[in-house]
């Protein structure tokens, strides 16, 4: 029998199929988010089941998370991605005491208890300057593909200082920096630092180690270093960081004792 975790995020839908007994991942998949979240999730689930030689009857329980979690009609229950990311990361990195999750639309900082439960969380979904959206804006402004931002930041000798709290004004600052001859590499590094500084501000003092970095932005090269510098802590990137939310949801689905 399997448990299913669905993370219906702002940019992508992720699904994990978990063996309820062994807690091994049977299959996982990602599909870009669209207008009809439920249809997309259904299609992905069907595809994963098919590829794994399983059927709907093999599913014991399904938990949905992510901003579109309430649209997933085949879910038995919903749980917020705060709890799901914590469970998912705890599963792959049980030592984690702090989780930084940066997605395309928001960023979160979770402080965990010894058993992987969330003790406390901070979240930013108001200011795009602290999210992956900022990277998209700078890539667009500099006309470079997103995957080039990492190597560019790595080449920077003197990261620029971006002071604005608002992405609109930050964009103006970027134009100002370009006008004064600051290199694109330094600007990209400055933007990465700016995101990291906002995360550090959200974290407050005394971030407990080990810190695990997850979410879509974790796969952008250089962001981990920027975060390490801002937090004053070494951090590790969660394996398969895009999937930790769905994994956590699947674990919760498998956990008979979990009561919503």
């Amino acid at each position: 029998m399997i448990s299913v975790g669905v993370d219906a995020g702002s940019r992508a839908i992720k699904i994990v199929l978990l063996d309820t007994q062994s807690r091994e991942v049977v299959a996982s998949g990602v599909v870009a988010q669209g207008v009809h979240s439920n249809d997309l999730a259904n299609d992905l689930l069907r595809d994963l089941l098919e590829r794994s030689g399983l059927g709907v009857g093999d599913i014991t329980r399904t938990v949905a998370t992510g901003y579109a979690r309430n649209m997933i009609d085949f879910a038995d229950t919903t749980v917020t991605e705060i709890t799901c990311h914590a469970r998912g990361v705890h599963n792959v990195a049980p030592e984690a005491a702090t989780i930084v999750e940066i997605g395309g639309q928001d960023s979160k900082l979770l402080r965990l208890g010894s058993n992987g439960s969330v003790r406390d969380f901070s979240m930013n979904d108001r200011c795009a300057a602290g999210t992956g959206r900022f990277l998209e804006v700078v890539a667009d402004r500099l006309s470079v593909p997103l995957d080039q931002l990492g190597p560019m930041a790595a080449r920077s000798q003197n990261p620029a200082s971006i002071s604005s709290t608002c992405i609109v004004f930050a964009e103006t600052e970027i134009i100002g920096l370009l006008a004064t001859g600051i290199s694109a590499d330094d600007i990209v590094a400055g933007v990465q630092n700016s995101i990291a500084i906002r995360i550090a501000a959200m974290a407050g003092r005394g971030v407990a180690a080990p810190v695990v970095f997850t979410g879509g932005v974790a796969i952008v090269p250089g962001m981990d270093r920027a975060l390490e510098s801002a937090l004053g802590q070494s951090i590790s990137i969660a394996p398969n960081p895009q999937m930790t939310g769905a994994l956590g949801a699947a674990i919760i689905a498998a956990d008979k004792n979990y009561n919503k």
Partner: protein
Amino acid sequence: MNEPRIISFDEWDSHYIQLRDAGMMEPSYGGPLRRHVDDGGDTRLLRLRYDNSAASLRLWNFLLTEEDRLRAARAEGKKLVGTMKDLGTVPVMAYSLPNLVAFYPDGAWWIPCVMEMNAGLLSIASSLGIDETFCPVRAMIGAFVTQAHFPLPDLLTCSVGATCDDFSAIAQRLEGLDHPILWWEIPSRRHPDTNEASIILPGGFSAPVSQVEFVKSELERIRISISNLAGMPLDDKTLARGIRAANRVRRILSELRILVFTAEICPMPALEMQIAEMLAIHYCSDREEAEIVLCELLTEVRARVSEGVGVLSAEAVRVFWVNPVADLRTMNLLEDCGGRICGTEYLFAHALDEIREDLPPMEALARIALADPMVGSANDRAQRIIEDACAFGAEAVIISRIPGASHCATEGEVIADLVRSELGLPVVEIEVPPITDAMIPTLRTRIEALIETAIRRNE
């Protein structure tokens, strides 16, 4: 006299050697400007431009060695009083006693600029939840945490009430971090009601006698604490002596301001003038030396004025500047854009006014405290700005908004409207964060547009 010029940081290296070889007398804290970059990490200095006089070099060296003086004072057994928010009242009391040194922890708001963020003070403040939506004075809380920029004071005072919420909130967090504070109340200054006994304060404001009496009673509480700290009474005679000494500094500054702001050719750059004015609040932790530093600067300015020379062209547009800037580079920018300073209101105009010596000292201090532009209305503040701008012949006004400061959210508009309607001068409001590098093109556009407007109006 060396020909007045505005020079770069690099130029100061060779210029310093020339001045030294020509016999420049230097104080113990003297030396080339570069030492503050090499030893102190004050990297912003690399990007600033400076007046080239020996007097200005001494001013800079005095400013950038305050921490050394505080630590030396502590080593000598003197007690340190950190006077927060209050600008120019409690320091006068503290410096009246020989074994006290007052300083101004709020001054930490320039550290992120001078050290180009490398001290990490703003990050520490952010990590405590005091983020960018607060005034840059939040750097102060970082300075208390690191203890790297001033020694912890033996007594910490802070005025609250009609002050800005940013400051009050930041100071409260400081107390929450185990830095006990002696709070004292400064009420919102109001106009006297009909038939209510009133007093004209320095700056021309009026206030009810009852408010002056209240402030006096609050300052009496400070007097007791200061006396206890010093282990000797701060009696009226001692305090009167301290007031006379404070007035000597204020008189020098007053003459300096009048000379610089009214001279045909600007004899001293805006940046050095801003620093000189700051000395009036807290003396950079040495009142006697502050007097000497200012005297030297005044001598230089007198000489330049009498010879009809200066650092800018005679055509520079005369700009009145409202509020201090977190990034010192902005003052250079004004001059780059064709402007010059001809009047300032850095939120402590009352600390430049002379304290009455013909009144009982506590009464005189209470009047000065209540004349603080921040504790009154924006209208009152605007009126004083208008009078000064008029007296100094301003052709334009720049209101420099302090990011996050609660008073700036609404005050700028009130001041701008009144200046426009009463003086008909062009006004521009800008916002200046601790590091403006990325904003220089935007700031330049605004300031240049203001200057162009002022020039067109004169044609």
